[in-house]
């Protein structure tokens, strides 16, 4: 074991940083405090990866303390192979967000970095929570900082986007609250492990209702078709850091909820809803891809592509096959890396051109070779090119889908084909061809800070593409245990 409670330290260190910024940091000092805090968070969470036992599917680094004794609710933390990668991604992306905001955020920088750090606490805490109550607390805590990030530092339509985001996510999560309370009433506990054992006391009919209640929360966050409409607005209007957090972590929270709550605790509900889940996942993949093709705004295009990519994730999860679920988790990780990187790329060029319209770009490669190379790498990764990270996840999901239903596999393949089309076409219109006259004279090439911001993601994209086993080995045991215990009611 480690010398200090790693998960608690990693969760609440950012909150401490936020408090420091609000109390002492002026706008100038804020970014330095924020950078130091996020780096420190990455450092204190290092033992998680070093000491994690990959062979075990049990919760590790478990902490438990009395919290609300009258209700038998504990403050419980712990990670398994499924949650660990996301803690890493949350802490890594937070560092990169600060890199991306270094010069972009000029107004009220102190509050900006404080909100970012509060969001980091919520993200790490959510994946570290070992009971539903704590999970819900972090789930909701995420709401306000993101609401402010979009609404205060976003683009022209920011207020509309922020309020839409808030109302959509809150509508889902309050139903989750009722679901959690109903589970508590029947089972008398909210601890994930205890619930997985006590689930037989939940009647099949009750499980169906509970699944629907949790689905409302998770589907909005993923977002699944047809409750995805908040996402294009939120992604597009958010500042770069907000988009990165939204695409990188927030969307994964919903899918993680399915893996943590729905499948282990509500197997009857899952069985009942299996077909509808397939249908909406397939619809998200194909519909999302077609809508993406039609976009003229770079950020909006990437936002819609997320809907399609997250469709793969839910499809993989609800195949309930080993390769499907492993692929889904891997796809969550890959999508976090790639979409975060793409949003960073868009944000960096936007800082110079102040336009997001695709038609205002063209020939960027001539002026900015390094930028265009990195963009090409991430675009290829998003398209699922073999040798880069997304390929493996999509491949596993498609395998799982064909195992389940041939038509699901066909839809997924169709989605991949469309995905290649829209992303390569985007790259073609932005980077290749004649230089757009509007761009002449702008200094488009990246500076060292920006390259350093993108480099870790590029490294991850390549290394996970060449050796996916490194990521898979972390969650293989956990997924195996999940499916062994969870699929058959």
């Amino acid at each position, binding site marked *: 074991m480690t010398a200090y409670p790693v998960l608690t330290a990693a969760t609440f260190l950012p909150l401490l940083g936020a408090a420091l910024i609000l109390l002492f940091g002026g706008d100038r000092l804020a970014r330095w405090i924020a950078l130091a805090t996020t780096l420190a968070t990455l450092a204190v969470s290092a033992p998680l990866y070093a000491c994690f036992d990959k062979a075990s599917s049990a919760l590790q680094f478990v902490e438990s303390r*009395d919290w*609300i004794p009258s209700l038998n609710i504990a403050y419980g933390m712990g990670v398994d192979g499924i949650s660990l990668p996301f803690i890493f991604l949350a802490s890594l992306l937070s560092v990169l967000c600060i890199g991306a905001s270094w010069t972009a955020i000029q107004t009220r920088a102190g509050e900006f970095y404080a909100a970012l750090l509060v969001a980091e606490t919520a993200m790490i805490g959510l994946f570290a929570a070992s009971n539903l109550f704590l999970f819900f607390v972090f789930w909701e*805590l995420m709401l*306000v900082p993101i609401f402010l990030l979009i609404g205060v530092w976003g683009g022209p339509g920011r207020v509309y986007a922020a309020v839409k985001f808030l109302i959509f996510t809150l509508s889902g999560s*309050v139903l989750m609250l009722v679901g959690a*309370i109903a589970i*508590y009433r029947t089972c008398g506990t909210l601890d994930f492990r205890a619930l997985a054992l006590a689930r037989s006391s939940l009647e099949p009919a009750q499980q169906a209702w509970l699944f629907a209640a949790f689905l409302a929360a998770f589907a909005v966050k993923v977002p699944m078709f047809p409750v995805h409409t908040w996402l294009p607005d939120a992604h597009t209007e958010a500042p770069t850091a907000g988009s990165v957090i939204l695409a990188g972590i927030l969307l994964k929270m919903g899918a993680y909820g399915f893996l943590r709550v729905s499948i282990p605790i509500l197997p009857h509900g899952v069985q009942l809803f299996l077909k509808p889940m397939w249908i909406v996942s397939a619809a998200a993949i194909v519909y999302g891809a077609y809508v993406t093709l039609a976009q003229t705004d770079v950020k909006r295009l990437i936002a819609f592509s997320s809907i399609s990519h997250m469709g793969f994730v839910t499809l993989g999860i609800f195949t309930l096959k080993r390769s499907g679920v492993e692929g889904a988790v891997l796809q969550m990780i890959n999508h976090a890396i790639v979409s975060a990187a793409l949003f960073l790329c868009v944000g960096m060029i936007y800082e110079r051109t102040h336009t997001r319209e695709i038609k205002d770009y063209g020939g960027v490669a001539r002026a900015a070779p390094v930028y265009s190379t990195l963009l090409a790498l991430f675009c290829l990764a998003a398209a699922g090119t073999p040798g880069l990270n997304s390929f493996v996840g999509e491949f596993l999901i498609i395998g799982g889908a064909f195992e389940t239903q041939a038509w699901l596999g066909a839809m997924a393949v169709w989605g991949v084909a469309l995905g290649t089309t829209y992303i390569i076409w985007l790259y073609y219109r932005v980077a290749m061809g004649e230089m757009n006259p509007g761009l002449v004279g702008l200094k488009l090439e990246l500076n060292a800070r920006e390259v350093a911001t993108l480099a870790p993601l590029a490294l991850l994209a390549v290394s996970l593409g060449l050796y996916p086993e490194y990521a898979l080995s972390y969650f293989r045991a956990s997924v195996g245990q999940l499916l062994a215990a969870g699929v058959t009611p």
Partner: protein
Amino acid sequence: MSLALLVPELILAGMALALILAARRIQQTPVAVAGTVLAAMAAALASVWVLSGGARAGFEGMIALDGYSQFFKVLISATLALAALLSVRNLDAEHVPRAEYHALLLLASTGMMLAVSSRDLLPLYLGLELMTLCAYILVGIRVERQESNEAAIKYFLLGSFASAVLIYGISLTYAVTGTTDFAGIASALSKHGTGSNLLLLVAIGLVAAGLAFKIAAVPMHAWAPDAYQGASAPVAGFLAAGSKAVGLAALGRVCLAAYGSEARVLSVVLAGLAGLSIVVGSIIALSQTDMKRLLAYSSIAHAGYALLGLIAGTGDGASATMTYAFYYVFMTLGTFGVVAALGERGETLDGYRGLAAQRPGIALLMLLFLMSLTGIPPTAGFAAKFFVILSAVRAGHIALAVLAVACSVVSAFFYMRVAVLMYMNAPREPAPSRFPAAMSAALAVAALVTLIGGISPGSLARWAAPPIP
């Protein structure tokens, strides 16, 4: 000696009399405020101290000294102290007679304390009337303002009607059972078959309606928006917090101790009140442009949430309601405190435009209180809402629980609209002037309780969940 049971009440009444006697000499606000806050603290300490001798009853069993009354006496003292501290700025700006203002606050609190410790319908009525009579004057104390006078008259007319309803219910209860003592009523009722006596059902309905007025539950809510709007912000906060806490305390005791055997009827009545309050309060609040009116409708909705706990008719449920009342007092006083601190600018929603850019600290406090009112963790409002919804679900009222959370999304819309104005709009008015340290202290206390209650609901459990009578 029974008088020992009333030490906290006597302290408050004594200070009120002292202030009135010295009224001509008190020209400065700090003296009156200090006196009031000291009296409130002394009353809180005294209520803890007198209970150390064990729970007992006095005055022929009419006044109870138990954990329940002690809990509310401490809560009322806190309400009084915070309201007095928050009034500092208003009193200076509005030419309100200082001594009288504080004496009225003290007397209203005396009435509240009497009401929460009553074990008989008559002293309960007396306490509530003392509170409401003082409240009428407090609402209208800014005599130079027309809207203030109008609010006081409206409040008075509706309030007298509600008092008449309450006393009518009490008299019908007396007619059926031959007593006004809670224990006596309960034992008389246990001899009847439940639900058999129509007169008794009417009596219960009337008493519930009379008490619903105090907590501003629909359909007895019409006074709240006008009264809050016309009153100064600290008085409105005092009413929203104090009147609601006392009304809930009285309802809790009456439901459990007196009419307990009619739990089925009570649960229907209370569920109706709760559901209506939540829906009506949340929806009408959407269209408000005046901050205090908005908070009035929010307080109507919160009355509904608080009632969710009582529906179950169990000790656990009532305890959830009282926890709700406890946290609600602090978050609502905090919100009204921010309104008061901003002066004229705080009265309308438009005044909040760009506040975060001008005064980040106070905007952050407001955001905290708004989050708590919405029920977003990690604030006390979330913990409180969790407890009451849990008890509603336990009682089998799933549909009501879903309705309640659905309305909390609606409420997020208008609470967060204030956040949108504060954070996402450019300021139009000059930054508000700095406010006195007393107000900062009161706001800090309210914020601290709101935060601690959310982060660690267990740590305040001893204070936030009273033993049930």
